[in-house]
């Protein structure tokens, strides 16, 4: 943390030329606006719970200005914080109602910021503590050799372990080879998914052979559920996996597997 964002513009501007290199090396040490704010509070020896917004805001803005002058890209997150600081500062300028009790001042516009700063500081320190541990592969090592006598023993019965990210990552890698248009997202983001309904319908069909539409929505008769189930049926029909029947006009809708279960003997795999 060697950056000196000076309190007075006049102090640093004449120095700028000679410092270009030094600054560009150190600027990225701030890990975002919270980190910069903590640095400014520490540098000014302020109490984190009673910071002078005026001082901090001025220095913070000077720092951003400096970044711009040095042609460094100022991340949007820094601007968000600048706006937050300015907002707090402007709220402090508003006349305070004398009737209000200023002791536990929930109306202090700094409260939210201080809470966030304290919390951020905790995690920043926690990060340093865990980072200071002896890490496997860096300070601590395992036995690397595998024994030839045991290499012959094959893992045959063990369960498989895999993470969700690996699955998604495998799919992502696949998409780099083939056009994305051949895929749809299974999950529509919210609530019910058609894929879940398809799975449900097909397992019901495997159990009982015929299913009536009402059965699908009996337990939870909502507009959404009816629509999604209906879309699932249309999709299954399109895929030629089911056949749909209707006994009479406005009668119940029934459906059965498009291919009877008994010729399952001619299995493919």
């Amino acid at each position, binding site marked *: 943390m060697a950056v000196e964002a000076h309190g007075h513009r006049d102090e640093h501007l004449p120095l700028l030329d000679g410092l270009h290199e030094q600054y560009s090396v150190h600027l990225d040490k701030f890990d975002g606006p919270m980190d910069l704010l903590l640095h400014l509070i520490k540098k000014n020896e302020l109490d984190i719970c009673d910071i002078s917004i005026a001082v901090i805001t001025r220095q913070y803005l000077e720092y951003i200005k400096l970044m711009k002058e040095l042609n460094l890209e100022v991340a949007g997150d820094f601007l968000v914080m600048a*706006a937050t600081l300015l907002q707090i500062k402007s709220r402090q300028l508003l006349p305070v109602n004398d009737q209000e009790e200023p002791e536990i001042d929930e109306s202090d516009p700094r409260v939210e910021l201080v809470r966030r700063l304290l919390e951020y500081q905790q995690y920043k320190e926690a990060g340093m503590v865990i980072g200071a541990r002896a890490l496997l592969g860096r300070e601590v090592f395992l036995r690397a050799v595998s024994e030839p006598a045991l290499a012959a023993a094959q*893992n045959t019965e*063990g369960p498989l372990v895999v993470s969700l990210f690996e699955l998604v990552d495998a799919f992502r890698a696949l998409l780099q080879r083939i056009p*994305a248009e051949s895929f*749809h997202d*299974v999950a529509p983001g919210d609530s019910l998914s058609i894929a*879940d309904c398809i799975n449900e319908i097909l397992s019901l069909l495997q159990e009982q052979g015929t299913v009536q539409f009402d059965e699908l929505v009996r337990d939870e008769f909502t507009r959404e559920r009816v629509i999604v189930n209906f879309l699932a049926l249309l999709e299954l029909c399109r895929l030629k*996996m089911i056949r749909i029947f209707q006994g009479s006009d406005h009668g119940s809708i029934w459906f059965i597997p498009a*291919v009877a279960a008994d010729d399952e003997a001619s299995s493919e795999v």
Partner: protein
Amino acid sequence: MNSELIFIIESLIFTAETSLSTDRICELLIEFERSDIKSALSDLIGYHQGRGGSFDLVEVAGGWQFRTRPAFHSYITRHIKTRTSKFSQSALETLAIIAYRQPITRAEVEHLRGVDCGGVLKTLLEKYLVKILGKKDIPGRPLIYGTSKEFLEIFGLKDLKSLPTLREIQALDAVPQYERQEELQLEPERPFPVESQLPFE
């Protein structure tokens, strides 16, 4: 006897991927005398032999290596045979295709992967990760596959809609947009840009 040197040598042999020759050890520990290294090494060998533990320091292919004693191999193979294993890339890819495109036929999976998937599909069926959902009424009446309840369990998913969409994973790469956030905002809530799109077009 220099016990520190003994343990330095032990740490080198313990972590080496192949057996370490005395020459190689001397090369790595240039600050020590060759004669000291040799005597420390022989102390180390003596120590492990004397201990009579499950593993021993033995000379293999001109170097030194820790090896378990053969008497324990029957126990060790019990573990190896039944330990958890990682998915192969082809199993993972096939499973991903089925998860994201179910219901799907084997031919469709193979069309996407460009290779035969019979073996992988069989393994996935045997591990109960994939199940047969039914048959398609088209020539050949191919079987249709989908993921099972076990699939959801192994990935800790409540249902299929909890599967991360590709868009969500790709959103991790995306450069965030700030235009909207330059307005004064105390809490910049930034949820994922999830577009609610029906899965079948």
